[in-house]
């Protein structure tokens, strides 16, 4: 191999080694984040890294890497086991292995160390012996279970290739060197078919000639060294598969990161929700207090407006009482002789100075309207009283006129009486003395004056008791009073 190609390969291997180490680190990081440690997975990844490391060391030592070594063809994943042909005994006999031992790996022996251990056919074997071996019915070595403590005689050949993820390939148990080399091929374990047999039952079941027919193309290749590029391509394929594993691990770690991020975000959201709830609660409390304040203010306003209305009503009542008192006083003034009892109208009961003070408060529109109506009523009352007063004055005048008429009638009666005594003087003179006649006349006059006084008092009483009496009634009374002196007279 040229030096340039070797350097390139070395560079590629170094990059691969670095990538695998990083992938393994990602894997461990994902396990740490998830808190789910998997030793087998770590061992598997470590085995992949150590594999590349070993190749790199080999290359650095100036040796070409062993082709199809067990380390390369049978990674710990075991997924290539069937593809690359497990070291069944049939190949051992079939391919005329040279004494160099360089094909040992191809035939299932992981490294050269097993060559000496098992005394592989590096030692020249006769054709007859090989034929005898190939004629055996598929001497398939049993794959060693991961925890096998009593391996079958063929176990040493498969130990390194067995996918034991818990233990790296470097820790594969070393068998006793004193073990017979021919034992594995001579003592097959028919109960447990090999992975190769499982992958290709026809091949496993077929006798040696069939296997021989299937491998003529491989035999010449095995005779030669594989080119480094082929080996490199094979290793690259293997590394691709391992990179897939690493990518899966990276995906797992990314998922774990996403989970942790989600957890952190969820916590933040919960904290924000709590803050929001507290803020809402405080806002609700503030709104409640504001509502209570508003209710209190409304109640206070209602109370104040009610008190102001009441004060206005009191003021109106006071005003009405005062007006009534004024009207009564005016009526009393207009009617001299009327009782003064009504003039002294006391203020309405329950009127306190405070109310009088609050009465100065300007009433509202309703109160003004009420006042207006009360004023209108008062004016109407005043008008009616004025009319009554006029009527009373007219009646007084009539009464006075009737009184004058009565006096005139009395005078006429007196005159008539004066004339009549002259006519009847002869009769009276014959019966009484002049002193007695004067006395009788004086008594008659006195009786007439007393009657008139009684009539006038009765009229005044009538006027006072019924001030709003209609003029017609008063006229009727007048006529009655006018007629009564006639009757009395």
């Amino acid at each position: 191999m040229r030096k340039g190609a070797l350097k390139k390969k070395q560079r590629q291997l170094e990059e691969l080694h670095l990538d695998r180490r990083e992938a393994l680190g990602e894997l461990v990081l994902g396990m740490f984040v998830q808190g789910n440690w998997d030793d087998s997975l770590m061992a598997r990844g470590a085995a992949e890294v150590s594999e590349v490391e070993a190749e790199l060391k080999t290359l650095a030592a100036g040796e070409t890497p062993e082709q199809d070594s067990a380390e390369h063809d049978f990674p710990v994943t075991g997924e290539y086991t069937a593809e690359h042909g497990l070291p069944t005994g049939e190949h051992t006999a079939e391919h005329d292995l040279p004494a160099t031992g360089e094909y040992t790996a191809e035939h299932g022996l992981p490294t050269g160390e097993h060559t000496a251990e098992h005394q592989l056919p590096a030692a020249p074997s006769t054709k007859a012996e090989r034929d005898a071996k190939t004629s055996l019915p598929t001497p398939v070595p049993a794959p060693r279970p991961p925890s096998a403590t009593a391996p079958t005689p063929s176990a040493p050949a498969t130990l390194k290739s067995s996918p034991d993820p818990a233990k790296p390939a470097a820790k594969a148990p070393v068998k006793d060197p004193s073990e017979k080399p021919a034992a594995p091929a001579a003592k097959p374990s028919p109960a447990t078919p090999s992975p190769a047999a499982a992958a290709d039952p026809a091949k496993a079941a077929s006798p040696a000639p069939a296997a021989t027919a299937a491998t003529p193309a491989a035999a010449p290749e095995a005779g030669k060294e594989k080119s480094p590029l082929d080996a490199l391509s094979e290793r690259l394929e293997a590394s691709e598969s391992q990179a897939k594993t690493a990518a899966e691990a990276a995906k797992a770690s990314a998922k774990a990161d996403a989970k942790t991020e989600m957890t952190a975000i969820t916590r933040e959201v919960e904290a924000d929700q709590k803050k929001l709830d507290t803020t809402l609660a405080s806002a609700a409390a503030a709104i409640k207090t504001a509502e209570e304040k508003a209710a209190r203010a409304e109640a206070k306003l209602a109370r104040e407006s009610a008190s102001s209305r009441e004060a206005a009503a009191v003021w109106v009542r006071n005003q009405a009482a005062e007006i009534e008192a004024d009207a009564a006083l005016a009526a009393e003034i207009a009617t001299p002789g009327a009782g003064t009892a009504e003039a002294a109208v006391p203020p309405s009961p329950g009127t306190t100075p405070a109310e009088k003070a609050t009465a100065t408060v300007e009433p509202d529109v309703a109160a003004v309207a009420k006042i207006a109506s009360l004023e209108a009523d008062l004016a109407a009352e005043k008008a009616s009283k004025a009319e009554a007063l006029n009527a009373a004055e007219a009646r007084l005048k009539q009464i006075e006129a009737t009184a004058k008429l009565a006096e005139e009638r009395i005078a006429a009666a007196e005159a008539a009486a004066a004339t009549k005594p002259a006519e009847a003087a002869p009769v009276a003179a014959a019966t009484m003395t002049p002193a007695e006649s004067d006395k009788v006349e004086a008594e008659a006059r006195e009786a007439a004056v007393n009657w008139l006084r009684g009539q006038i008092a009765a009229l005044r009483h009538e006027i006072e008791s019924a001030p709003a009496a209609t003029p017609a009634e008063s006229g009727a009374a007048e006529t009655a009073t006018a007629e009564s002196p006639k009757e009395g007279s």
Partner: protein
Amino acid sequence: MGLFSRNKQSGRERRAMKDHLDELDELRRTSLSELGQITVEMASDGTFDRQHLSAKATEVVGIDREADLIARGLEDGLTLEELEDLARHEDEPGTDPGQ
């Protein structure tokens, strides 16, 4: 514009953040490689010291967090002071994704 941005991010700050992000990326790769190497050595010994692995993984988690913070600062256009405030806020308990 960033959610918490009060001032404008200067070009110098942006460059510094980018450089630091690159450094963190390189440091992360190195740490991961070291973690992988440690794992290989432990595998060759046959035992895995999870405490040691956890310590190393915690370093990587810290690097990741710092890188996320710087990336957020670059994305939101935060100044260095705002980024420091944000880092202090994220250092509060309950927001550590590694715990």
